[in-house]
């Protein structure tokens, strides 16, 4: 072992020390090939951290009572010591903004720098979902714009009026995202070109005989012509922004603001396990390397490992503190396991992951980080080893059965099933009810019909009626929500208006 000349020995931090730690960690991160935005590290107080937390971690956010509610609940827990304040917060922007709390020890600061400034940061910059959906260069400016715009609206139209719109938009926030990137609009020439091609193609398909011999009923034709929107739309806020008949322009702009922010937050909701796992894997790897180089002391390491262990703790299902699967624990375990599969593959690994067993671990992890979200990441990489380590098991809860059934456990027969079911558990598409804009009665009462497409007979929670009131507030005319069963029949209909 090399001579130990630690950067620091006490637990106090200074700005010079932070700079030295950051420089060393940055050097190691570069050696491992982590590609990051430049970092902006901000030292703040615990109260400022609570403020930041209360607004979804965004550095700037418009005012709303629900953020006040969040603040009060964080404050309550924090003051009673029920919750250590999350000691890191990082913002997906360019430069990447990370907060350090002044109360932290130097060890914690180093951990947060490694975790946030090099872990999360590289994830934000390279994961495909973030690349597709968030403009890191523009987000802070946009938030400032949004805040100012909404303040202006409050001054002009009154706080309560604006609050009403915001409440309604927040209720639909999860339904205000594009899941797929819409193609950019075509230029006029391309459009004309394509239109011509389409025309020729359609012409070639026309079966004159069919068309002239079987008359279409006028009612049916009318129905077809009037159909609006032509395709069901799953981005409810987008549809409302573009089509709600009675909204004032400023109200549309507010809908748009909430939608844009929802879109910005969307990749995070999809990558909790990956993102936290990646950051945790890297703080672990980077700080261990610091230790190997003799740059940190044994005391530093002990404190670090204690915190690290707490972060990745996974209580079992029957434990009082159990609150679902800890994304830090699962993500960290999976990335570590991936590295193990690359470096020390077992027979089982060669069989399950023939293409990565024994490969270069840095390349393999980099590829995994870039190209997946939680659902697909688990479907692709959850190994029997991790399933066994976590003692995962699946419970089938069918309301038509008297009892619950253990449908798979961590054994040979269950690995694939567990992997599949766990992946499904992170599929937002199945976690959230599938609700789309179905039609608008454009000629009649302008009523809006939403459809809920049911899977596994799962009903909507009672809150749906309340949400519908919010939709009605935005749409201005009757709003209907039809639940459609698996056989395509409408089983239930809420109406508001």
């Amino acid at each position, binding site marked *: 072992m090399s001579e130990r000349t630690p950067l620091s020995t006490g637990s106090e931090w200074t700005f010079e020390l932070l700079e030295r730690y950051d420089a060393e960690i940055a050097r190691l991160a570069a050696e491992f090939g982590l590609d990051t935005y430049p970092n902006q590290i901000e030292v703040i107080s615990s109260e400022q951290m609570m403020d930041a937390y209360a607004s979804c971690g965004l550095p700037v956010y418009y005012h709303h009572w629900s953020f*006040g509610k969040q603040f009060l609940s964080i404050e309550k827990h924090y003051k009673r010591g029920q919750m250590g304040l999350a000691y890191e917060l990082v913002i997906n922007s360019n430069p990447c903004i990370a907060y350090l709390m002044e109360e932290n020890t130097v060890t914690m600061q180093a951990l947060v720098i490694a975790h946030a400034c090099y872990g999360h940061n590289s994830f934000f910059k390279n994961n495909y979902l973030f690349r597709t959906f968030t403009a890191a260069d523009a987000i802070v400016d946009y938030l400032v714009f949004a805040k100012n715009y909404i303040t202006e609206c409050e001054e002009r139209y009154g706080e309560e009026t604006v609050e009403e719109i915001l409440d309604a938009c927040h209720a639909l926030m999860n339904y205000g995202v594009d899941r797929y990137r819409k193609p950019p609009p075509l230029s006029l020439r391309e459009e004309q070109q394509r239109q011509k091609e389409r025309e020729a193609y359609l012409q070639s398909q026309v079966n004159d005989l069919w068309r002239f011999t079987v008359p279409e009923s006028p009612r049916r034709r009318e129905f077809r012509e009037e159909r609006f929107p032509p395709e069901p739309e799953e981005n409810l806020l987008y549809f409302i922004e573009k089509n709600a008949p009675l909204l004032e322009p400023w109200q549309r702009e507010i809908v748009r603001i909430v939608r844009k922010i929802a879109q910005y937050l969307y990749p995070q909701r999809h990558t909790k396990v990956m993102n936290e796992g990646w950051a945790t894997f890297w703080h672990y790897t980077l700080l261990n390397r610091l230790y190997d180089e003799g740059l940190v002391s044994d005391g530093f390491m002990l404190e670090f490992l204690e915190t690290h262990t707490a972060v990745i703790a996974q209580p079992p299902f029957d434990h009082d503190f159990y609150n679902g699967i800890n994304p830090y624990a699962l993500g960290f375990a999976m990335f570590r396991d991936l590295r193990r599969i690359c470096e020390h593959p077992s027979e089982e690994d060669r069989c399950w992951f023939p293409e990565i067993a024994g490969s270069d671990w840095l390349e393999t992890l980099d590829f995994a980080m870039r190209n997946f979200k939680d659902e697909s990441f688990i479907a692709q990489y959850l190994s029997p080893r991790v399933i066994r380590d976590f003692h995962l098991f699946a419970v089938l809860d069918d309301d038509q059965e008297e009892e619950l059934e253990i449908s798979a456990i961590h054994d040979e027969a269950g690995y694939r099933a567990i992997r599949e079911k766990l992946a499904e558990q992170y599929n937002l598409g199945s976690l959230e009810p599938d609700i789309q804009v179905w039609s608008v009665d454009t000629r009649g009462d302008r009523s809006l019909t939403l459809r809920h497409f049911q899977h596994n007979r799962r009903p909507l929670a009672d809150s749906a009626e309340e949400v519908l009131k919010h939709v009605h507030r935005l749409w201005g005319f009757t709003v209907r929500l039809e639940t459609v069963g698996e056989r395509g029949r409408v089983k239930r209909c809420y109406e508001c208006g």
Partner: protein
Amino acid sequence: MSQIIDRRLNPKHKSAVNRQRFLKRFRRQIRKAVSDAVDGRSVTDTDSGERVTIPAKDLSEPVFQHGPGGRREIVHPGNRDFVTGDRIPRPEGGAGRGNRASNQGEGMDDFVFELSRDEFLEFFFEDLELPDLVKTRLAQEVAHQSVPAGFSKDGIPPNLHVIRSLREAHARRIALTAGKRRRLRELEAELAALKAEDAPERDIEALAQEIDLLKRRIAAVPFIDTLDLRYRNRIQIPKPTTQAVMFCLMDVSGSMDQYKKNLAKRFFLLLYLFLSRNYERTDVVFIRHHTIAKEVDEEEFFYSRETGGTVVSSALVLMRDIIRARYPTQDWNIYAAQASDGDNWPEDSGNCRRLLDEEIMPWLQYYAYVEIDNDYPLGLWQEYEKVAQRWPNFAMQAIDSPADIYPVFRELFRKKGIDR
């Protein structure tokens, strides 16, 4: 490559606005919580905020989500004994949710949070429907007193300190003319020498002219200059706090039910708030009476069920004795508040008036009598009216509901303005 920035001096409480919005939105529920809290709270406990509970359904932010039912499969960690195909009974509490519900954003726990003391008071006053005027006066900080603090170079004419100013002027004149006087002395000595030597007239003349010039120059130094002026300086220091004692007198005869006691309590609470803001130390003495009076603790004062006939003077006698024994009037500011429904043993009301006139009012800063919910003001009220005519620091009001508590208070505050 990284930039490290110290933001600790940036404003905190960025969420203050959001917090206000939240309080505003749930005003109704919070007012109720505060109102309930007042009933259960001790009069002297005004230093803390209050825990407020709001039912979860009121502040839920609804979103589309799955309800219980249907078919679902969930993967959990930590299996010990289960094997595939095991069937287990559904846990209590619906479709196998247990505490996992909160994980799905469906938790229905009530929302509990803490109001700060100021927020508590704001809601408390609002509940009493006080106008803003009183709120601001109640919310005032400790009064300041201006005290002499040496002398300063600027100030206003009334504060001019003549002796100091002249002394400065004198010093300045000495300083500015010292060289010239020295020279003058030398010249005069020279002149005397010349005269003694019978020097030529021309030399003497020149010397005399020079002496004359010097004298004029010395005289040209102003006798007093604005630079010399000194003013008495005064600075503001927190007013030395004194102590106050507040007597709470309450009739507990059978007709004083819990509602009336609660009205009285609000009144006492306001009085206590006022006193504790003005005095560093505030004592409270609780006296309850029916036919006989007794000093009790707060719990017994407001919640005891003991009852009997009514002899109001017994309470006044006890108060007088306590003042004599424990609260020498040179050390204590004494306030008293009495709550009663005005129902007294007829012959006793005169005693009360006499006691107040002769033995109590001379020692008191203020006496406030509130008569609660009495449709036919009788004996006691009439006698007390006589007291009020004689003593400007005696106020009386009838109270029917919380909103009525305020007028008595206004009297109290107006009084304060005259007294000090």
